[in-house]
């Protein structure tokens, strides 16, 4: 078809509809060349462009205007042009910038993975494994916040937040009143419901699913189990407010938690309601379809930790500090 645009990403050519973003074009090819995305969420309008992990180099603008783009561009928010050539993992500039972004995301992150419920399914964990450095150069104090309960089912732990704004868009677009937003600015910005307002909405639990890190966690699952000890099962029930199609995380006959079904890129297939998520915690509430394949290539599911990460012994450089 002639009305499709041809785009080449890391040497692989694909034809996609005009208006598609570089990231989605890459996802239609799949595999290693897909840039990582921490803030973009295909189901949320307006998301993306913020985390800068998906930066790519455009080495040829289009067939008509072959000039390369001077700066790296966010692949999630840059539409493709016909004949565009994009470099992702083949560009040293991109890898260098991505390494920088990972370092920036981690400097104020508590790195408390051993006690974090998200560990094992955390995008930041995967991202820093793929692109980060083994040591941090950050010597200063990290910013800290108190934990906040948003209602009795959701806990907000701002220390871990990377300000991707996904939950803000979710609260804005899936639920019907806007109580959830950003307060303050710069590195003091925080997700808040303003004076700890409880989010009372039937779909508020979805903010947990969209959170790429452990900032928003399910209080009914908190510290019950590590995610890699529970098995995901496809299950459904007839629900009046949502599709009722969920993933049950079970051990034996016990249901530990209920989440929406997530695709390869960690995005939910369908948002689910709070009744399904928080209240139906018995296997008898559900019709179980069978085990669910985990599509995510998380560092834990691939057993990458066993190989061990080589860390050089820190050098002493005086004043009791290490480099």
């Amino acid at each position, binding site marked *: 078809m002639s009305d499709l645009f041809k785009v080449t990403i890391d040497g692989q050519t694909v034809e996609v509809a005009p208006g598609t973003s570089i990231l989605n074009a890459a996802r239609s090819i799949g595999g290693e060349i897909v840039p990582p995305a921490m803030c973009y969420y295909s189901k949320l309008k307006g998301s993306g462009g913020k985390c800068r992990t998906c930066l790519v180099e455009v080495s040829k603008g289009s067939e008509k205007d072959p000039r390369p783009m001077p700066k790296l561009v966010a692949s999630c*928010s840059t539409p493709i042009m016909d004949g565009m050539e994009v470099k992702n993992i083949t560009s040293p500039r991109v890898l260098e910038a991505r390494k*920088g972004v990972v370092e920036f995301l981690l400097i104020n992150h508590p790195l408390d993975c051993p006690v974090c419920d998200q560990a094992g399914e955390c995008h930041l964990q995967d991202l820093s494994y793929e692109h980060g450095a083994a040591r941090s150069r950050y010597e200063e104090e990290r910013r800290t916040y108190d934990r906040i309960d948003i209602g009795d089912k959701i806990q907000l732990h701002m220390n871990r937040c990377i300000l991707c704004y996904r939950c803000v868009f979710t609260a804005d677009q899936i639920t019907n009143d806007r109580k959830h937003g950003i307060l303050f600015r*710069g590195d003091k910005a925080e997700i808040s419901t303003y004076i700890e307002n409880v989010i009372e909405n039937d779909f508020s639990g979805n903010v947990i699913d969209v959170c790429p890190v452990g900032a928003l966690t399910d209080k009914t699952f908190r510290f019950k189990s590590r995610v890699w000890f529970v098995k995901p099962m496809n299950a459904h029930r007839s629900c009046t407010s949502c599709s009722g199609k969920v993933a049950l995380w079970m051990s034996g006959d016990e249901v530990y938690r209920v989440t929406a079904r997530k695709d390869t890129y960690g995005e939910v297939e369908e948002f689910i309601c709070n009744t399904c998520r928080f209240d139906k915690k018995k296997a008898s509430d559900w019709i179980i379809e069978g085990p669910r394949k985990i599509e995510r290539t998380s560092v834990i599911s691939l057993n990458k930790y066993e190989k061990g990460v080589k860390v050089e012994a820190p050098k002493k450089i005086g004043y009791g500090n290490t480099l």
Partner: protein
Amino acid sequence: MGKKLLLEHINVPGIRTYEVYRSKGGYSAVEKALKSMSPDDVMEEVKKSGLRGRGGAGFPTGMKWSFLDRKSDKPRYLVCNADESEPGTFKDRYLMEHIPHLLVEGLILSSYALGSKSTYIYIRGEYKWIVGILEEAIAEAKHAGFLGKNILGSGIDLEIYVNNGAGAYICGEETALIESLEGKRGNPRIKPPFPAVSGLYNCPTVVNNVETLAAVVPIIQMGGDEYAKIGVGKSTGTKLISACGHLNRPGVYEIELGLPVDEFLNSDEYCGGIRTGHELKAVIAGGSSVPILPGELFLKTVAGEGRLMTYESLSEGGFASGTMLGSGGFIAMDETTCIVHNTWTLARFYHHESCGQCSPCREGTGWMEKVLHRLEFGHGHMHDIDLLVDISKKIEGNTICPLGDAAAWPVASAIRHFREEFEYHVKYPNKVKDSRKAHLPNYKTVTV
């Protein structure tokens, strides 16, 4: 004596009022345009004039206007960016405070060219008192028939509204300004789409600086070709420079672009030289975000040619040995200035003003500030200097809006040109504690 186009009548008593402004030929450009020119003619004159955006980026105004989506059936908007918050820049304030009718006249002309029926002035929160001055000028112009319905019988309607910001530097970025004007949090938008296609209320919008819009008045009065004769090469016309720092005569000066830097710094008509008895150490030529230059490199390029006050000449040598004309916030520093302290102060500003949307700027500006704080107060290490360079490289170009670049450039350039001073702070931590004075005597200073 250079030609004065914007500040020609600035010293006339009462020029702030409509009567005096009119008696000095004010609003004649509006009469000329509305009676004898089509909107396209006005735009053509601006294109011919070679006028470049005076807000800092120096993008050709005529070209920016031509990007405006005219095919869309949505209303088109013109927004005047009066959110002048760059440290060292105060030219727009001077213009709006003393000769507000010039801006109003420029807005009428530009709105006519662009087809805007509602034009907004987004003014910085700290310029609260200027809101009244502008509103008075708008009311006077409306009373005289230059605003409102059917201006001068031409069938053109135009209203100008003044909107006061809340004092955020980031709202000077055009898309953040638009967000703020819409009543939202002032976060820059992800581009594309650009404002020329989808700006204010998702309608085609042009955002221009105060001085750029004011400069449209002399362009229409004298014609674009005539205006283009002033200046050198692609830097045409006159430019307001707000000079501050260790100068004998700090203030706002209108210069013809192409004026030798040396003359601007030393002539009694302008800055009147570095304060008596002192020597020039460093210059920030165009507002705090442009790279800082040592005096010698500022006066002469690496090739030994004297620099001119033009967009091209100041940026000669790239970032290795050049800088930018930027918004015209000229800050001169003498040998008493500690560059480390100065860089820390600037880093603190950008840390405070980052909107927190994208990760490199949100985290990087704070990190740089903390490392610079350590260095300034004698707790730094040698590797901190390279760390700063590396952080600035990782911020630069990787952010949503230019604030990231603006935060990275001053730090990178200060280390590039004044590295020994940073190293001194590491080597002699006891000598630099809690002091703003320069610790390396006569380091890189030039007598001018």
